[in-house]
């Protein structure tokens, strides 16, 4: 039973940590848009990085996807999906902007 209690605490901590990280990755972004701290291109780059980090945080702390110690199917699935979204999404942007630039 103490085992269970410890595990529960650990899990609660995981959610709390994830929440904290997510706040850290969100609030400054909105603030810098609101108060014009950064120029546009810097902000966009930072937003991109923060978004990816926050997605990782959500997977790690809310969905409990880990790199080690568990079967790998879900992780492989997520990574493959990332690859496909990358190919399709970036491909779309590449192809369509290429077309637009020639019109």
């Amino acid at each position, binding site marked *: 039973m103490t085992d269970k209690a410890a595990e529960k605490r650990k899990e609660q901590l995981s959610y709390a940590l994830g929440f904290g990280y997510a706040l850290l990755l969100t609030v400054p972004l909105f603030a810098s848009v609101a108060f014009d701290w950064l120029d546009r291109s810097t902000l966009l780059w930072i937003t991109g990085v923060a978004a990816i980090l926050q997605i990782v945080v959500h997977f790690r702390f809310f969905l409990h996807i880990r790199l080690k110690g568990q079967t790998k199917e879900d992780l492989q699935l997520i990574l493959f999906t990332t690859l496909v979204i990358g190919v399709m999404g970036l491909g779309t942007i590449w192809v369509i902007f*290429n077309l637009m630039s020639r019109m």
Partner: protein
Amino acid sequence: MSDLWSLVFGRLTLDALPVLEIIHATNGRELASGIVGTTAAGLAVLGALYLVYALTKYHLWGPLWRDWLTSVDHKKIGIMYVVLALVMLARALAEAFVMRTQQALGDGGGGLVSNEHFAQLFSTHGTIMIFFMAMPFLTGLINYVMPLQIGSRDVAFPTMNSVSLGFTAAGAVLLMISLVLQPFSTGGWTGYPPFTEAAFNPGPGPDYWIWAVTLSGIGTTLSGINFVVTIYKFRCDGMKLMDMPLFCWTSLCTSILMIFALPPLTVATGLLALDRYLGFHMFTNDGGGNMMNFANLFWLFGHPEVYILILPAFGVYSEVFSTFSSKTLYGYTALVIATMCIAVLSFTVWVHHFFTMGQSANLNAIFGIATMLIGIPTGVKIYDWMLTMYRGRVRMAVPMVYAVAFLILFTIGGLSGILLANPSLDYVMHNTLFLVAHFHNMLIPGLLFGMLAGYTLWFPKAFGFILDPKWGYRAAYLWIAGFVFAFFPLYGLGILGMPRRMAEYFNGAWFPLTLVALLGAVMIIAAFACLCIQLYVSIKNREALAVPMGDPWDSRTLEWAVPAPAPEWNFPATPEVEGRDAFATLKEGGYDLRAPDDGYHDIEMPRNSALGPVLMVGSTAMAFGLVWYMWWLAALGAMVCFAATVACGFRRNTHRIVKAEDVKAEWEAFCALADTTPRIPRSLEQTTQNMGHASPASEEITS
């Protein structure tokens, strides 16, 4: 009155009936066109009425509902998929025949059907062949065979399996309705805007296409999820991924493609629907729309789709070559890696479907090279299959005839594909019949022959008797010859510059080759007739052709270890296997049919569920309502689907128990039959002496 009418029937009026084309005909061709359309609609209605009559007369509504429609047994769902595929194949072949006739008569503006009717024909032909013939056929085969091959009792989500079938069937029903309440889309199976936008095509045609394709897409995505989870989680003890039969590998890769490639189609058709129904500007000419993105999204789906179609056929051929050569598959690992390469590369080549859209030459070159790369793993496969036959005990049974024809014809088609992969050549060939010849060359010898080979191979497993070989050979040779005559001339016509999708032309040089192609179409119709006769003859002689021992071809994989037809619970106890070709190993050890090691146990099987058929009816109603602006019907259909899904969540007690003693009785009867059934050598394989009990291959080689 008209207000009330439109409230109930939306924009549906009597003008939708094809017979109107006869009444309003102003010349011979329009009259003929009306007659063709009316005949087709009449046949569809008569067919449906006869079905209702027969079901009522023989009191089959109950059994149909209990044993088939609500069944969640993967084997029955698989059979229903294949039946759907064959019915739709019949219609799409008839359409192909009419189109070939039209093009043969179309020199100088003559012919059988009007231009508008012709456009509907090529649109339905393509849509049906891809979404309602090829997809259900391969989904059906995977459904029937894959769980047996991996030693599982069912797929991971049996009820969802029935739901997938329901959505696919709903799309097919919509297409059949469009035959009676016209018109269907004239935008081809790709439905490119802006032609299919409301501004140019305000009628119901594109809406039929959108909803039929979307429904089938949803069904396919769900199937893909089901198969992937089944293969990952439901393999029997000892079967590692690299021990799976190759058909399971290609099923896995196809399913992964289904999961990831169908969403772009849903996005494309969904956005087109938003344009048409709500006046969005996604793909319109005006308002800041971008029609090129539709081509981009559609082919993000469309290219992986062609591998969804071809990979299961590759799996069937692998089983056929191995079985009918009595050898283990040559280069198993290479075949698996090649399959995975094809699956991943298929996501990187979609631009080659629109090289001419205007991207820069560099971009085209990159996608051209990526396209050519796919030729490499495919080439590896061709050699592996040839080497599987080398020094094997090769029998030219019917599936093998298809397979050998495939090897030769598919390679030719692949070569024409490499030509088209070159962007500068593609600029010349684009939108000509050369392209039509190319993809039919891939899909008929590749996909369709594979499906027919699989149908012949596994039919005895599903029904307990083999298909009559004589009519099988006739069908196979007619298919092969018909294909060659129907499509090789199109390569020539393409080089002569004849555009695709053309109902009439004024160039006498094209006429002779269109006539040859028509001859090919006649042969293909004859081939299909042979298949029908084969089925009829085989059912009539089912006693003599019976193979109750379940292993008519001396095969190597687990599905052949059980009786034919396979029992509901598949295996008396989930098998434990070691290595590849699990059943062949068992047979060599003399352990092919035996009682489970630790006795018989109760088996838990999923109960029937009405969710699939209810969703089918609901989604058909919704789609039909949306097509004709019958908003009450669309809302009602949506409500039915929603309520049924929520209610399904409240279902408990979804399993029932098959008693251990029943399993024992059935299995022991099977084992007892084995003692009295003679084993036959491979030379008698296609005779009535074949009872499905194979004499071990090793014995035959020494004797």
